[in-house]
Structure formats: C-alpha cells, structure tokens
C-alpha cells in the first residue's frame, strides 16, 4: 500500500540489551517525570473558592440596564428580538402614564420582557442591536436549575437593582 505520510516508523523488534533488561533505569526515568510534575504549576483550580478570570469578551447572563436616575432604559423597540437568531426574546410594550416618569426613561417602555434561557445561545446580538444601551450580557454564568420553568427570565429577573433605592 502506498504510504500517505512519511511519519510512520517501523517498530524496533530487536532483542533487548542488558541495560533494558534490568528495568531499573527505565523505572527511574519514569519516576523523575512523575516527581517533576509535583513542582510544576497546577493546571486546575479549586473551583468554588478560586475562580478563573473571564475573557474580556465573555458573554454571560443578560441584564436590563437603568439610567443614572434609575429609570428603565428599554423602550421595547424589538430590535433585540429581531436580531436574536434563537428567537429567545419576547416583549410587550406599553405607554408611559403621567406620573410614571421616574420609572421609565421614554414614552414607551417594555411592560413585559422575557428571555427564554433554554433557547438563548449567548451570541450577544441583542446587546449589539440595542439602540438604547439597555440590554447587556454580564460576566455572570447562568445559574443551573432543576425545572425548565425557572429558565424563563422575566423583566424582574433581568433588571438591575435601582441605584436610587
């Protein structure tokens, strides 16, 4: 058969020499490698106590941002839902009433805003599409859970706490 690469090596089947027959040098060689690893830098971290730093472009759990005065930035323009390749985002808009100016930044706001985290692929397109700097992907890992219902994140779960309160 024609050889595909030049990397193959013929197995050496010549009889062992005396030095190979007594095995001890080979054992000593193996042990030096093993003991050498004790002094090397560990590849693992002890996770809950220690955490690895995230890469600066890491995309984790979503948050809905507020402005400096604590008002919701989202205006339910639907661009995040439009950009979402997994169709994970849904929303319903409402008009701001007189007296609600301290709650919502603009005339229109998201009365309902939901992200289905079972669908979300954390691509970050929603963050990129947002014209109001409202949705951000934070550096938090998404918490695990036992029920599927808990992965439907509502607006209350996504909104950051009001800095004014």
């Amino acid at each position: 058969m024609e050889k595909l690469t030049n990397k193959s090596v013929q197995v050496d089947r010549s009889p062992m020499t005396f030095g190979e027959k007594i095995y001890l040098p080979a054992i000593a060689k193996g042990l030096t490698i093993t003991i050498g690893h004790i002094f090397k830098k560990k590849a693992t971290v002890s996770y809950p106590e220690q955490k690895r730093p995230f890469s600066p472009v890491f995309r984790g759990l979503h948050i809905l941002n507020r402005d400096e005065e604590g008002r919701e930035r989202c205006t339910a323009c639907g661009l995040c839902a439009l950009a979402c390749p997994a169709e994970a985002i849904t929303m319903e808009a409402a008009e701001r009433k007189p007296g609600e100016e301290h709650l919502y930044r603009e005339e229109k706001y998201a009365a309902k805003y939901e992200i289905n985290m079972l669908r979300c692929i954390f691509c970050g397109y929603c963050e990129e599409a947002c014209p109001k700097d409202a949705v951000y992907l934070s550096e938090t890992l998404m918490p695990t859970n036992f029920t599927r219902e808990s992965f439907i994140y509502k607006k209350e779960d996504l909104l950051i706490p009001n800095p004014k309160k």
Partner: protein
Amino acid sequence: MSEQQNFKVTIDNITIEVPAGTTILNAARMIGGEVTPPAMCYYSKLEGSGGKCRTCLVEVSKGSEKDPRPMPKLVASCRTTVMDGMEVKNITSEKVLDARKGVVEMLLINHPLDCPICDQAGECHLQDLSYEHGASGTRYEFDRRTFEKEDIGDYISLHMTRCILCYRCVYTADQLTNKREHGILDRGDHAEISTLLGKSLDNEFIGNVIDVCPVGALTDKTFRFKNRVWFTKPVDAHRDCPTCSGKVRLWMRGDEVFRVTARKDKWGEVEEWICNDCRFHKKETKDWVIEGPSKIDRHSVISQGHYVNTEKPHVLIDKVIGKQPKLLLDIHKVSDVNRRDVDLSKIEGPAHSDDFKKNQ
C-alpha cells in the same frame, strides 16, 4: 401636436418611450428598479403633490433633441416633464448623489430619530432614504425643534417633531374629504401641522392620512405601541363596505388583527383608499374575508421570518418511539407575554401599566 405623441427619454442610459407630459419621475418608475429617484412628498394619487422635499433631484445632461444644452441646475424629477431626446442622470451622477445626501441631512436636522419608539419604524420612507443616502452622523450642534403635543382625535396621533412637511396629508384631506380641518400653520422653522383651535380630525376618510404620511408624524392610535410592524404578518383581506372598496391589508399576529391599512403598491402608495370604519373598527378576523398573505419585498424587514414555499421537516420521532414525545414545558403556562386574558388588539388605545395588572 398629436395627442398620441411619444417622447424618447434616456434615464441612466436606459431609453424608454413615454407619452408627452409625463414627469421624469414617472418615466423612471416605468423603468423601475434603482433608476427610480426616491420621493418623499410626491404621491401619484394626489393632485398637486410633489416639489417640496427635493429628494428626487436629478441631473438633466441633455435638455432635448432640439435644444441639447444641459439644464443648469439639478431639477426635481417629480415636477419636470420629459422632452423628446432628454437625457437624465440619476444614480450615475455624482452630483445627484451628493445633493441627495445633503437633502437627507437637511430632512434629518430636526427629526428626533426616535425610531425605537416610533410605530412607523420598519415601513418608514425616511428610514429607507437615510439608510441608502444619508450620512452616519449629524453636523448639527443645536437643539432640535420641538412642538407642544397636540391631540387630534381618538384615532390618529400626531407627532409634529417627526414631520418633514411633505403636505401629503393636506392634499389627502382636500381631495378625499369634504372639509379639511388640518393644515400647515406658521412659517419657516415654526411651520407645523395643526388643526384650528384644537379641533379633532373627524371625517370618514381621514384615516388615509396615516397611510400617506411618509414618516411617523401621523400614526394609528389604535395600533400605538401594540407591536412592531415586523412582528405582525400582513394579510390581504376584503369586506363588503358601503363607503369604500373594502380592500385592505390586515396586520395580524396569530388570530389577532392588530392593524388595518390600505394596500400599498411597490412605490409605497395606497392602491385604494379605505374608510375609517374599516381601518379603526373592524379588528376581528370574522369581519374580513382573508385572501392570503401580502407580497412584501424580501429586502424589507417586514418579511423577516416569513418564509414562502417552505416544506415542514418530516418528524419521525413519534413513529420511532411509538407515541407522541412528552411536552416538557408549555411556554404559555410560564410566559407573561401573549397572555390569553390580555388581548392587546382589543384595547382601544396603547396599553398602559394597569392593562397588564388584572388577574395577577
């Protein structure tokens, strides 16, 4: 001069023969495609419209066969009629593209750019125009012009800040209704669409001003903030209407009719005017005979997610395991969006915080 006289006109190196008296814009529309100059104020169904927005400026490089001198300035193609042997440059002329960029910049000087809130977003001609011809940033350093908000009735909402003063709605009210109640008040920078002494617009056909408005200045109050245009599905439908043709386009989501508009052709112009009753009051599927999905240009955002001629994938899992797979999560049980007890399409105006609070 015989009545059947045809003129040869060359637009962007494409020659077409058109009847005498045709405007350059209409000749270009007969050719179609990218050769057609954009128009914000001209409306073929409205007499006297055009000549205001200046987005349709073209260069006439040869006046006519008899007088081949070029026209000294760019001309508004919606108001200039063709001459025999005329040569027009639209997208092949640097001058035109540069001028159009300037016009868009001027149109946007006072425009609030509140597209995330505006209900017209997705079918707005100014959005298309600035996407194609506009600059990415503004050079304007002053505050944008604002107006006091005016209530012009239960069905139409007026956002004067978004208006580009195309006069289309004025012509519509003049030519479709018996009595025009709104118009342009004041001059120059202060010019605004208004009704005299805060009267509300009340006429059987006044709803058509929503459709002719190229921007979001006049929008449907019954659809206000209900949904984004591109999440609703346009469907052609008709009904027996005693006052109008009854041929409309429904904007649906599931079985809910969110909005009723007139059908529009490829230039964004209304095909047949519809009455207020059809537009604002018939918001149930049973009022309409549905003809089928509307044809929307595939480059439009409205056609996102609407697939045609698709085949559903053949699911075999039930045959393999011998039963229907167990549904592990019914999204409607968990989700707050699209709740069965809150029908957004049935609410008169825009939804408010208390509309979502019941039964919670």
